[in-house]
């Protein structure tokens, strides 16, 4: 079984701060990491490979430093890595990203599953996975907690708020995984050494055979108009007297009085 895992390199948000004057992210000196949720996608793929055999290919679009993320994925044990790097891809929104990834997947051709993280910690749109499935016209199974493959079909347990749903689809299919789906493995020391002996395949816009106007900023319908930190509204603290039930009742009354519920 051949699996493609799409990953994104993101700034380590634990280290990120905002410039209050410009409202923009201060990225200088911030280390980049594999989007944590994408590590769950890699782990899910590696576990499926251990059960069913085959190959895991990791795919990422971004500037040259994306190589670090791909090497880390190779260190975790994936078999191959493909990097989409081209100035034409700069400024891509989720749609343009899905378009380029879709072309790359078509070029890879031989695959049974695509696995993505549910969402990236920088954008938090959760759009790329589903859009990629639409782009390729394959079934999408989102928010997976568990994945099982039997007889050319894939089944997942989907997390849907407080509910779980069991979904099934023929392969090839695309799955997005939740953070709780697994605990990503620590890269073994020998695999790390091997990771640096492997070649990373580089594809640019010309290699993907797509329409120029669909790449990057030109192909992105989303236009970012402003980034800002919402102003905090300072209120008065009021302590409610009484036992837990009585205090809760008073609290609900006050919220109702303000038409919040």
């Amino acid at each position, binding site marked *: 079984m051949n699996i493609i895992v799409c990953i994104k390199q993101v700034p380590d948000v634990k280290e990120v701060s905002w410039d209050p004057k410009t409202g923009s992210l201060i990225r200088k000196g911030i280390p980049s990491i594999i989007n944590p949720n994408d590590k769950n996608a890699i782990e899910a793929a590696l576990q499926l490979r251990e059960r069913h055999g085959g190959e895991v290919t990791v795919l990422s679009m971004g500037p040259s430093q994306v190589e670090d993320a791909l090497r*880390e994925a190779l260190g975790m044990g994936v078999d191959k890595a493909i990097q989409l790097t081209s100035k034409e891809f700069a400024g891509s929104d989720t749609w343009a990203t899905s378009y380029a990834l879709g072309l790359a997947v078509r070029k890879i051709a031989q695959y049974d599953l695509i696995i993505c993280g549910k969402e990236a910690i920088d954008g938090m749109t959760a759009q790329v996975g589903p859009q990629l499935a639409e782009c390729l016209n394959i079934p999408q199974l989102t928010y997976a907690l568990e994945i099982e493959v039997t007889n050319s079909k894939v089944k997942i347990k989907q997390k849907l708020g407080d509910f779980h749903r069991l979904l099934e689809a023929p392969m090839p299919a695309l799955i997005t995984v939740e953070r709780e789906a697994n605990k990503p493995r620590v*890269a073994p*020391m020998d695999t790390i050494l091997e990771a640096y002996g492997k070649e990373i395949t580089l594809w640019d816009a010309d290699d993907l055979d797509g329409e120029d106007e669909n790449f990057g900023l030109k192909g992105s319908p989303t236009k970012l108009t402003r980034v800002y930190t919402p102003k905090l509204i300072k209120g008065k603290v009021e302590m409610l007297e009484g036992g837990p039930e009585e205090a809760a009742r008073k609290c609900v009354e006050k919220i109702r009085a303000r038409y919040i519920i």
Partner: protein
Amino acid sequence: MDFTLSPESKMMVKAASDFCEKEILPIADSIIENNDYPEDLLVKFAKVRMLGLAVPKEYGGVGTTNLNIILIAEELGKTGTVCAWPMLMNNSTAETIYRWGSEAVREKFLPPLCDGSAYASTAFTEPATGSDPTAITTTAVPDGDDFIVNGAKRYITGGNKKGYGVFYVKDGELKDQKANVTALIVDKSSEGYTTSAPWEFMGLEGMNCVDVFFKDVRVPKSNVLGERGNGFRILLHWIAVERIEQAGYMVGLGQAALDQAVKYTKERLVRGKPMAFMQGIQWMLGDMKSRVDACRYLTYRAACIHDEEGPFDVVSSELKIFVVPTIQEVTRMALQIHGAYGYSKEYKIEGLFRIAAHAGIVASSTELNKTIAGSALVR
């Protein structure tokens, strides 16, 4: 001279750090409470291939550099736990077996030391001797294809854990010769092999240091490591490796103490301002940082000399002389910055301070190493 770590080394450091966060820190308190680590700890190290790091792949190892081992030891040192020692003991013992062992010995003993199925030990010290080979009383008397071993060893790390140990014994057939110490690889589940309860050491809860007793223990002659009578030379090699590993661990410990101190000074307010803004505190932090960095690069240098197959016995002694007291002082300064809180078990620095105390004594004393380094200058 290049002080930049390779991308592979950086990724190994990150992986070791991830491993510590995932597997070591969650069990840190229970190790102290139980005076023991979980039995599967070694298997966990094996799963991320942290065993047999210097052993070539054909024997089940990883085949990486000694510098990378030290970088991993540093990350383990940051946890302030004894978990580094089973891992480092397996690595240094396996490296020594690879270096000195015959092909048959390598094939028999290296795979279980690399796959986590055997805890390693190295045993020289006895109740009446710490570093004098002439004072060894544990004997190995030839009997057919075996030796019969009798005697006792003291402070043997992991001596009570199943696996193999390299035991240095007085060879019964060589007793009239000057070089009469033989290194024997002993199965720790052999009949007649017994151990005491673990010693209770300051800061080393869970270290599993025990006394080992041999009563007519049969050890195959094929388990001899290297040449008979060459044991002391093998021991000197192993202990030099161990000293560098210990220094790597101490650098990590010092870095953790510094990190704790920085965190505390940023959080603790004095007259409405964080302590970190006080010049006196900044001087202390700057002093600690420079000391940790000096220890780090001295240790890396020793590991690189080991990798280059240069003589590293004296440079490893320099680590005991400089790194050990320097890091001990760094942990003391970090404790001092914490004030009374630092003296409380509620704070990590208390444990770091206590565990640092072992390093001037374990794996040869600082004073002995001063003799080694000093005598080399006037020889």
